[in-house]
Structures are given as C-alpha cells and as structure tokens.
C-alpha cells in the first residue's frame, strides 16, 4: 500500500479552510459556557431552590446522552421548529449556529461539574478570613475564592477543551464545513479515504497540542503563588522545549515542611 502524498498535500490545503470553523465552534462554546458553568456551579453549591433541581437535571440529561444523539436532535428539531416561527428562512440559517448550540449546551454541563469540584477545594476558612477583614461575601468570592478555584479547575478545563475540539469534528453531521467535513468531501471524490483521514488526524493533533501548551502556560502563570520556590527536577513534558523561566530559590522552609504546607 502506498500513500498518495500529492493528494494529501492537496487535502491539507483545502482542509485548512476548516480550521477557523473548528476554532470558532470551540471558542464560542467555551466563551459562553465558562461563565454559565460558574453560575450553575454556584447554584449547586449554595443549593438555590428550584434552580438547583434544574441544574442537576440539566447536567444529568446532557451527560447521560451521547453527543451524536444531541446533535441529531438539535439538527432535526431546531430547523423545523424555526420553520413554524419564521417560515422558510429557517432552512437558510448557517448550520454552524446549530453547532454552536449543541457544543455550548454540552460544555456547560461539563464545566458546571468542573467548577463545582474546583470551588469545593477552596477551604472555607478563606471566606471567613475575608469576612473578618470586612469584605462582603461577594467581594471575597471574586477576589479570594474564585482565583484559587480557577487554578484547581484549569487542568479540567483543559481536558474539557480538548474533548470539545475533538467532538467538534462531529459537526460535519450538521453539514458544517469544518476540517473533517472538507476532508471527507475531498476523499469521497477520489476514494483516497486513508490519506484524507490522516490529514484530519494531523490537524486535530496540532490544534489539541496548541491548546495543551496554552493551558500549560496559563496554569503556570496563575499558580505562581503555589509554585514551589525551589527549583525542582520534575520532568518537563513538553516534547520540544519552551524555555522555562528561572525560578528564584527563596524559601525559609525545608523541603518536607514545604510539602506539608502544600498539602494544607
């Protein structure tokens, strides 16, 4: 078996037009679902009546159904629903909007749980300390609790984002012209499926890798307060090196003391 490399290059050129589409789906879904996820997590933590039941139900509903089923339902329900309201124009709507809806609804459920667990990792003494220096609960939440929770949440947000990127490839079912859809169409013309799929594979790999690096850097930036002050010999997982900034060795603690504190 030999690969048609010329064809692969051709697919790569065409499929690159799908990259912005994929990124758009991911970014829109993330930007909308992040604040809503925080809100839903708070509703669950503070056990706000009625709303709490709604959030619980919503999260189980989304998490308990395959994303492909959600896509099929949204894609078949919404256009006919809109058809009864705005008439034929409903079928001219760019299908990417349906993708926004499905992936946003999906991310909200995931991120609600991410933030719920992250907010619970912050010691309740932090809130009490805030109140005792005269801050209001809301001020303490945004200035003290949330920044700490965000750091605990980052690895899981990264995880959710990677799933979102990969899941967005299912948008082709809604005839959204993303990377996958373009490559599939190309492949269907020439019957070079393997080559086209390999290109798709590489594109997603690159996008996911970039996302990983971005989250890694965000995590480093935001967790400066709990970074160990001694330079550790921990392995650097980046396959090719991004220069690690020098960390100043400033500490009054022995290694064991610091580990103890980190666990507190």
């Amino acid at each position: 078996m030999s690969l048609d490399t010329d064809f692969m290059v051709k697919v790569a050129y065409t499929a690159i037009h799908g990259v912005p589409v994929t990124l758009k789906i991911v970014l829109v879904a993330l930007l909308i679902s992040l604040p809503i996820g925080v809100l839903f997590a708070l509703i669950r933590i503070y056990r706000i009546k009625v709303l709490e039941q709604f959030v619980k139900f919503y999260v189980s509903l989304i998490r308990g159904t395959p994303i492909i089923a959600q896509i099929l339902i949204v894609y078949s329900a919404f256009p006919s629903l809109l058809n009864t309201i705005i008439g034929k124009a409903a079928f001219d709507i760019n299908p990417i909007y349906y993708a926004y809806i499905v992936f946003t609804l999906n991310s909200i459920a995931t991120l609600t749980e991410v933030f719920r667990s992250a907010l619970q990792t912050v010691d309740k003494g932090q809130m009490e300390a805030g109140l005792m220096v005269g801050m209001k609960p809301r001020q303490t939440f945004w200035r003290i609790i949330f920044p700490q929770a965000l750091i605990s949440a980052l690895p899981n947000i990264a995880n959710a984002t990677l799933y979102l990127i990969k899941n967005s490839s299912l948008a082709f079912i809604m005839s959204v012209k993303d990377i996958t859809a373009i490559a599939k169409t190309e492949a269907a013309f020439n019957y070079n499926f393997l080559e086209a799929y390999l290109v798709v594979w590489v594109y997603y790999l690159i996008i996911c890798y970039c996302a990983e690096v971005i989250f890694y850097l965000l995590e480093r930036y935001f967790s400066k307060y709990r970074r160990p002050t001694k330079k550790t010999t921990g392995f650097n997982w980046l396959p090719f090196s991004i220069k690690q900034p020098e960390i100043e060795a400033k500490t009054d603690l022995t290694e064991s003391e610091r580990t103890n504190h980190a666990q507190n």
Partner: protein
Amino acid sequence: MLKIEGLKKSYAGNDILKGISINVNKGDVISIIGPSGSGKTTLLRTITTLEEANGGHISFAGVDNDFQKLNGKDIHTIRRNIGFVFQNYNLFNNKTALQNITEGLIVARKVKKSEAEKIALKALERVGLTDRQNHYPSQLSGGQQQRVGIARAIALNPQVIFFDEPTSALDPELVGEVLKVMQDLANSGTTMVVVTHQMNFARDVSNRVIFMADGYIVEQGSPKKIFENPSEERTKTFLTDILANV
C-alpha cells in the same frame, strides 16, 4: 466596650454555649481557657457571627441588639470592629504577605493603595516580617504565617482582636515567636481576647482569665486568683491536669 449577655448556641440539639455573659473593657487582655469541647472557639465564632447564635444580646460598637435580630449592617459593623486571628491562619493563599494585609484595607475600608501599603508595612514591622512582604503564604513557615495573620488583624485597627488558639496548629519550636508578638501587642495596650492552651501566656500576659467548661463560664478572675487560688473544683482539676503535663 464589648458586652455579651446570655449567649446561647446549639448544634443539632447539642447545647454548646449555655448562656455566656462577658464584659470586655478597653485594654483588657482576656485569656479563655478550658478543656476541649467546652465551647471556647464557638464563643469567639458566635460573637463575630461566623456562627449563628441561638440567643443572647450584644452591645458593641454602637450595635445594641439581640443576636437573632442582627441585620446585615449590624453584622458588618461587628466584624469591622473585631480583628480575628485564626487557628489555621487562613491567610489568603493567592495573595502575598503584604497583599493579605492591604486587601481588607483597600477593598473593605476603601483606603488608597499607597496608603494601605504604608499601613501594611508598619504592621509587618511590628511582627518582624518586613523582609517577607512579597512571599506567598505557601512560602512561609507556620509561625510566620500566623504573624502575618496577626499583622492583618492589627492593620485594620479594630477595637478588639480575637485570637482563636493561635498557636495550636504550630510546631512547638514556632510557638514562641507568635507568643512574643502577642505579648508585645498586649503591652502596647491592644484589647485582646485569647482562646489558648498556653497556660504561661494566660498567667503572665492576661489581666483576666476565664475558665470555661461544658458551655458555661465556670469562673473568672485575675490570673493570680485562677491559677493560685481557684474557687471551683472544676477549675482546680483542669489546672492540675494541664499543669502536670507542662
């Protein structure tokens, strides 16, 4: 200055505080001692409304009301005028030592940032940690964290500072530095209420000792009276037990 009458608190049917009355005067350094579970910590937490009281009256800083009738403004006033030093320090983990102190000043008291930093540096100087101002709590030892905790409380210039077992979470060799800071504060006339197991501190630094057991104040008086001539049997037993272990 701070007057509490008939303070009651119960958790799930268990009475923790069974009607406590306390009077704190300006300049008082009061030590509250007593066996574990006697309600000492709960007392401080209920007065500051970190825990909800089930009964009792408070008059302090212009608030004169039953605990159960306190509104948001009253609660804010009470907390504003009481400094609190926690057993587990509870420094803001995402803020440096300096920011831990300026946070309350800037956000709650609306002090200008430069002004707040000046106040904070002065407070850090009093606890001997000026050189640690840019360290995060995770980079400080327990004793240093607690000293920042104390600096955070004094910077807000409250009428009274509550200390909730400030040295209980510390390694034995770090207790001294914290007690030293507290002693300096006491000497400078700061009004303090200290829940403590450090009998030396209670005896040597405070001007009044309150002995609590089972949710009641069993007896109170000068350190001399409590330690040398307690009138209640419970106090005697407690002191004999605890001093035997020192």
